[in-house]
């Protein structure tokens, strides 16, 4: 079973904001809500680096742990989703998230904080697939169409990879090795590949 992940390659990102635009356009995200954004370090200094940041669909998501109404859930593909019908817009998830992924629409005369909105890995929400309600609340469900997130598929330099964690880790590792480097490959699976099935013990060896 695929375990969906994003991987951002700082060496390739040219800060074009194509991913941000693709996301906004795909899901018709309102003003003031940025499910994805590009963060640049040492902006303006030669050698600046940019990465695209959104919900990273954590394996052990802190937003899920702190939500007082338990509105989060995780799909079989490892995508962290939430139910907007249960969300009370308290903002705990925003403080818990290390990536600043949860967003809160603030419209209305009194700056009312609405229900949380975040990257869905283009997997919609608990509403029926392809329904109008799902699109209005969570955006398009590309995963149910057999497609990957629009941001990653749109990325011109392929700095942003999205999909099965093992596959994109392999793509990234090949890329880094082709560059002739290796230090950027961190994380056991990314550096050494997907876990292999344990080989049979050598004859006479202890099991």
């Amino acid at each position, binding site marked *: 079973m*695929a375990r969906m992940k994003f991987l951002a390659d700082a060496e390739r990102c040219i800060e074009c904001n194509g991913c941000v635009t693709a996301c906004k356009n795909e899901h018709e995200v309102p003003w003031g809500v940025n499910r994805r954004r590009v963060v640049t370090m040492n902006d303006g200094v030669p050698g600046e680096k940019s990465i695209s940041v959104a919900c990273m669909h954590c394996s*052990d*998501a802190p937003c*899920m*742990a702190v939500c007082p109404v*338990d*509105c*989060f*859930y*995780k*799909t*079989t*593909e490892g995508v962290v*989703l939430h*139910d907007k019908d*249960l969300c009370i817009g308290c903002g705990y998830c925003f403080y818990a998230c290390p990536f600043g992924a949860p967003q809160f629409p603030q419209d209305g005369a009194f700056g009312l904080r609405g229900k949380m909105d975040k990257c869905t890995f283009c*997997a919609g*929400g*608990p509403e*029926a*697939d*392809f329904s109008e309600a799902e699109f209005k609340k969570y955006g398009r*469900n590309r*995963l*149910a*169409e*057999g*497609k*990957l997130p629009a941001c*990653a*598929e749109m990325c011109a330099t*392929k700095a942003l*990879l*999205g*999909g*099965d964690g093992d*596959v*994109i880790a*392999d*793509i990234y590792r*090949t*890329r880094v090795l*082709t560059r002739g480097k290796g230090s950027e490959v961190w994380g056991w699976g990314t550096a050494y590949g997907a876990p292999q099935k344990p080989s049979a013990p050598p004859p006479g060896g202890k099991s």
Partner: protein
Amino acid sequence: MKRDKRWLIAAAVALLATAGCGEKAAVTVYKQGQYQGKPDKQPWDNDQFKGDKLAWDKAIKARNNGQNEYARVAK
């Protein structure tokens, strides 16, 4: 009086010993695919894939590998 004190000490020790037992796990437990009354359909359970998981897996795999330009572009 002496017996009362002993009881008091025993109660205090018992209270201290079990003080940590009420701690709840901080990590949320979830079931794959559904979580606390929020069931969601699998991505292949729709009109497009009609429950064909293999077809969905194939489509996603093709998209996954499509991101590898070393495989796509001839050397």
